[in-house]
């Protein structure tokens, strides 16, 4: 069985550990079918057991934070939108909430409802994509995993169709604005949402049948990649990864923002902390998000969707030099924005904007979790960490 995680030393010195140097160095290279983007882990292999794993990030570093100091607040929303390219709505919501918190703009209730519906639908779509690619990681591109991938994408396309109906774009929407939303929902959106979430709720049972209740799948994930609860928390890991290790923490319930205070969000935790627990937590979270959407889709209040007058010039949003950290619960954990106002363009762009990406914390647990497992386990664990390289490297 893989060794317990606590006594693994992440900065193991290879020369002292193995003077005869018969370890094989395998680069789970930046270009590899299942590293979920451009990411490299240098594995020191003893046979097929990993002795040490050294991850290298930075291959997709586009300097978004430097760009945010150049562009104004109105312009960075579509740019920041592309950080976590699996759940773009969350990035927009995070940055827009930071600006509203600094300017104390009162967002109309209809916009809050829209944001919550979009966020929960985006969470389901993000978890569906994770489930599909995780199936491919375990089952290979020409096998059972690929069937699960196609089913998950079939469901995900229906959700993207809903977003397309409202915002006109399937993926990077730019539908949030400082003070509210830019696109309003249509009656067709409400009808389609209700039918879509019923279909997806039914299909999740099918995924459980083909995947998580399957003995081969359970063998591949039970007891694999065990992450200690307090190690996860000290690494700053939040979201489904921490909840699978028994950390009962969810920002939607503990520090509610928007209208999450009025909704009762129940949080699912597993204690095992292995790949199987993470799968179960994400599946339950999908059902939970569907329940929330079903609950609030019928009671969207009427009224405006933007709190302030939409400006024509890029510099109509100005923030004076103060600092604020706001965060939301994205499908991967606590997605935060630390904004320091009073930057160039006479205060219309940020002095410094740090995006706290949950995937970077998730990926930082690799040196602690990989040792003791085989290469195929490493792929399974990397799959369950659900890292998005755009968000890790920004």
């Amino acid at each position, binding site marked *: 069985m893989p060794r317990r995680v606590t006594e693994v030393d992440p900065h193991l010195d290879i020369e002292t550990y193995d003077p005869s140097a018969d370890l*094989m160095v*395998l680069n789970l290279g930046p270009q*590899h*079918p*299942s590293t979920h983007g451009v990411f490299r882990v240098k594995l020191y292999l003893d046979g*097929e057991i990993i002795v040490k794993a050294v991850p290298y990030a930075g291959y997709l570093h586009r300097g978004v934070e430097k760009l945010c100091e150049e562009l104004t607040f109105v312009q960075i929303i579509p740019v920041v939108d592309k950080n976590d390219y699996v759940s773009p709505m969350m990035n927009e919501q995070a940055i827009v909430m930071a600006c509203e918190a600094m300017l104390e703009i009162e967002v109309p209730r209809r916009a809050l409802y829209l944001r919550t519906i979009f966020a929960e639908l985006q969470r389901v779509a993000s978890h569906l994509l994770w489930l599909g690619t995780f*199936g*491919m*990681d*375990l*089952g*290979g*591109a*020409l*096998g*059972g*995993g*690929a*069937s699960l991938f*196609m*089913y998950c994408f*079939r469901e995900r396309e229906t959700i993207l169709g809903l977003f397309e109906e409202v915002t006109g774009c399937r993926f990077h929407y730019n539908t949030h604005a400082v003070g509210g939303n830019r696109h309003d929902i249509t009656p067709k959106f409400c009808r389609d949402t209700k039918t879509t979430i019923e279909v997806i709720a039914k299909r999740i049972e099918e995924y459980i049948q*083909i*995947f998580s209740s*399957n003995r*081969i*799948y359970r*063998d*591949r994930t039970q007891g694999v990649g065990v992450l200690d609860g307090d190690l996860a928390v000290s690494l700053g890991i939040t979201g489904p990864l921490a909840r699978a290790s028994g950390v009962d923490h969810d920002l939607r319930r503990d520090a509610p923002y928007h209208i999450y205070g009025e909704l009762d969000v129940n949080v699912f935790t597993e204690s095992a902390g292995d790949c199987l627990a993470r799968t179960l937590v994400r599946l339950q979270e999908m059902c939970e998000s569907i329940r929330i959407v079903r609950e609030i889709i019928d009671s969207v209040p009427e009224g405006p969707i933007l709190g302030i007058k939409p400006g024509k010039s890029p510099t109509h949003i100005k923030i004076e030099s103060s600092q604020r950290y706001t965060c939301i619960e994205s499908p991967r954990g606590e997605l935060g924005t630390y904004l320091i106002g009073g930057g160039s363009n006479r205060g219309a762009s940020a002095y410094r904007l740090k995006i706290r990406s949950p995937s970077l914390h998730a990926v930082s647990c690799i040196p602690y979790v990989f040792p003791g497992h*085989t*290469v*195929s*386990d490493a*792929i399974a664990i990397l799959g369950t960490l659900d890292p998005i390289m755009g968000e890790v490297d920004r």
Partner: protein
Amino acid sequence: MTPLVHGAVWGVVIATVLVTVAVFSIWFERKFAARMQTRYGPTLVGPAGLLQIVADALKMMQKEDILPQKADPMLFRLAPPCAVIFTLAAAAVIPFDEDVLAADLDIGVLFLLAVGGLVVFPVWVAGWASNNKYALLGAMRAVAQGIAYEIPLVLSAMVPVVLAQSMRLSDIISVQAETHWFVFWPLGPGLIAFVIFFICSLAEANRIPFDIPEAESELVAGVTTEYAGMRFGLLQMAEYLHTLIASAVAAAIFFGGWDGPFASGLHWMVLKTLVLFFMIFWIRWSLVRFRSDQLMALCWKYLLPLSLVLVMLSALFVYVRAMDA
């Protein structure tokens, strides 16, 4: 017609038929797998994508046969043809009808298993010779899996031999024709032996859920990482051929070969083979892959002892029947 000429003629006929069936099974698998995944599969090239296979073959042929610089040139070139030759060699003894077989050896099953066992080497040599870390990992896994699953395969193939008191495949089939098929007749040993034989032939042919040698998601492309062009085509062809021949063998020794309820003949044998072949596809597109150590545990802990018990049971069964006869 001297047996040599008979063998040569039928050998060529069976080999070409098997290769064409294997080729068209690729098309069928892609269309059927597409349907399983709610999509269309190849439709553009030819009517309903039938010419997709020809297009793939042509593409493979005109691709450059890359020989990596540090690879072992002789072994690297030798592996793919050997893979196809060894798998096709096993087809020599499979009787498709009374006299429709290449070589009616009286040690048919022994020859079959011996040549079948050789298939592990080309896969291992391919991985070793391409001097690539991922291919090396794939090769070591292929050897471990091949050897592990050889033993239960042989033992479960012994059950029909013991029941039919002969190693000649046509005798086994004729015994099944008189009595019941070995899958149903002695309920315990027959059925379980078939299941073990089926699982082990899946493992030998490196098919899901046992395809760890060329695990695309882990080892990039496993053993076939450094191969391109027609060499890669041959390695893939060998895999499909191996599954086709394994299902033909299983149909022969467990499902009564050409014996069928009404007019027994060639069509029954072909039908049974294709049904088993279809089952392999179906399993391939619904299951996830084992990890290598679980795979070994499954073989050594469960399949091996079970198949030993089955051989003893069938021997006991034959003894009891001989006693009261």
